[in-house]
């Protein structure tokens, strides 16, 4: 009977971890003072490239590397356009989204129309490796074991990246320099920090992290190329909103992912809860299912409104975000 809660918690993590990748990747980029609206497209490219490389070599490691590199190249393109050529960041980001999603369809259509078709993973080593791993002792804990410690390796990697990034920002000198660039690039420059190098590096790494999130969606949530919707399915956009919710902190991004994930899972699992506990939660079925479908987005909206009302909630926002830094302008 209580399996339904285990399953609920399990689904919160399994279906929302890509948001964590998208959000932490975007935080890293925004901390350098650049606003990249190309999360959706970057994730799509990482997903397709990683998935195909993985299917070809049957190796999760190769899939991750290729996904990271492919998205990193998109990050390189973004940096070249906005840092070196000083192009408008908003427009460049939107272009990357359009390009990335179109890239997904371009490759997808070509492969699906080919005689061999879209590569299928069922039964391969890659498929086995991307599924849940069993951790001795931890996975066997009742309730928590199944919900928290029975996931694929990419889920743990996502959490690890969030923690490491938090430490990086808080405890290391390059992290401090990065935050300085995001606040005031001219001041950082005058102290001898190589602004362009820092921007390039962190935009590329941030994009690479997003790509891993896309790969996760391809391996664990999608994996078939079927005309009507892209694997990323709007997760990139939600990630951008979650950055504000998390107040530009990777640790809070973890919390934001879980909260958003709760409502995202509720829209699917509300019926299961009502079915298992007809007396206490039966009322859930009286609410129209369309309300549950809208709920995650209503919550996003509420969060954006409330965080915008007080400047305290935006204390983590880099002051120079969205503005290009041009040295001779000083």
């Amino acid at each position: 009977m209580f399996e339904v809660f285990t399953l609920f918690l399990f689904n919160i993590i399994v279906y929302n971890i890509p948001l964590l990748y998208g959000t932490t990747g975007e935080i890293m980029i925004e901390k350098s003072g650049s606003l990249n609206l190309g999360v959706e497209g970057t994730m799509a490219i990482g997903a397709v490239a990683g998935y195909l490389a993985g299917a070809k070599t049957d190796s999760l490691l190769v899939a991750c590397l290729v996904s990271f590199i492919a998205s990193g190249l998109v990050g390189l393109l973004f940096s070249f356009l906005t840092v070196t050529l000083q192009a408008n960041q908003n427009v460049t980001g939107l272009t990357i989204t359009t390009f990335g999603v179109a890239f997904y369809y371009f490759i997808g259509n070509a492969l699906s129309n080919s005689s061999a078709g879209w590569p299928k993973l069922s039964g391969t080593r890659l498929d086995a490796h991307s599924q849940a791993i069993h951790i001795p002792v931890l996975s066997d804990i009742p309730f928590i074991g199944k919900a928290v410690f029975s996931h694929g390796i990419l889920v743990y990697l996502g959490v690890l990246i969030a923690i490491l990034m938090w430490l990086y920002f808080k405890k290391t000198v390059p992290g401090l320099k990065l935050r300085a660039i995001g606040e005031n690039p001219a001041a950082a420059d005058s102290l001898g920090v190589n602004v362009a190098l820092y921007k390039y590096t962190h935009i590329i790494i941030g994009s690479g992290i997003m790509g891993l999130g896309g790969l996760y969606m391809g391996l664990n949530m999608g994996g078939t190329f079927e005309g009507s919707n892209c694997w990323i399915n709007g997760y990139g956009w939600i990630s951008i909103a979650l950055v504000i919710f998390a107040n530009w902190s990777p640790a809070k991004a973890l919390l934001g992912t879980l909260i958003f994930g709760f409502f995202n899972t509720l829209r699917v699992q509300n019926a299961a809860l009502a079915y298992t506990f007809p007396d206490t939660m039966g009322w859930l079925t009286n609410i129209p299912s369309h309300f549950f479908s809208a709920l995650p987005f209503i919550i996003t909206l509420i969060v954006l409104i409330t965080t915008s009302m007080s400047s305290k909630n935006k204390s983590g926002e880099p002051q120079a975000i969205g503005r290009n830094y041009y040295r001779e302008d000083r």
Partner: protein
Amino acid sequence: MKKLISMLVTAALAVTSVFALAGCNAAKESEGGSGASNFKVGAIYINSQNDTSGYTYAHHKGITKAMQSVGLDPSKDLYIVDNVPEDDEKVKQAVDQLAGNGCNIIFGISFGYINAFEEKAKEYPDIIFSHATGYLSNDKNFNNYFGRIYQARYLSGIAAGYKSLELGNNNIGYVSAWGTEYAETCSGINAFAMGCMSVNPDAKISVYEISTWGDQQLERQAAETLIDTYGCCVIAQHCDSSQPQIVANEKGVFGCGYNSDMTAEAPNAHLTAPIWNWDAYYATAMKAAMTNPATFMTEVGNYYEGLNAGLVDISPISSNCTPETKEAIEIAKDLMKKGEWDVFSGVKLSFSGSAGSVTVEKNNAALVTNDGSEIVAAGGPSVDDGVIQGSMNYYVEGVTQVN
């Protein structure tokens, strides 16, 4: 100097453009010379003609295959306007464009094109308008067409019913885009459920409605919920992607896909899938329109065929099915093909016996909804086609929607 260069460039441009135009004309002439037929087909699609699965893909494949079978060349004689939303103005523009291309027959594949088609059929009396899934028509040049996919769903239900008997689990799941809002999804669910119950009278069908035609993540989660919470042992589906089948495969249960043979995606799970062969209709319609457009409405008229015309069928029965499945499906298919029996009537089929000696029994039993109201009395005739196509908005007994 600058002036000289710009003059040279202009001159060069002018000269090349003349050549380009000449090339164009030459190409056009040769095309016109070799074109054997002057019959042109127009098509308006809701999604892209480059889709590789799903609704538009199935129609596009059907139209091109039918054209080849009646001797037309899809690369020359087919004009497409795709990604046309269900908006009257946009549809009218698409029709005007195709009429300008000289199309003799125009197919519109989405329900919402209905009003624009009715209006434009009056404006262009020489063009035949053919509209899928609708209910309007006139007696000269405007018909509607659809198929009895519920018959194929009934057959896949038989496969699911046998599987549930074998596993000793009466819970069968169904991931559906919509529930009772559309007669198309509703009749599909009911027919599938009745197929299951013809084999396993105790079968319980749990429907999860995802409220969209396609969303891979939702389809996936719906299937997981049906398996984990409701204990379903077979997952059927009426949605775009094969995610429900992939989940069934991962979780070691079974499934019935839709639209295409999904055995490749779910090798250990897939039983059989209801499929469309749209070319059956398109070939009939094109032939009639090519022979004599004036008699199109008497020759073809409003088209609503099923297994008998080959418009719907099921994909090959996979090795995951129980041994009795094939025999029972053949028997039911035969009855429907001959027109001796149909799904939504006061007579129910009941299969028994083991492989090699499967027998069917026809029992008079009322068609009852899941809240107990009677639709057809025991022994009564089949409901009207209009009900199956348009007004069915109830589940039969044995079906529950879980969300």
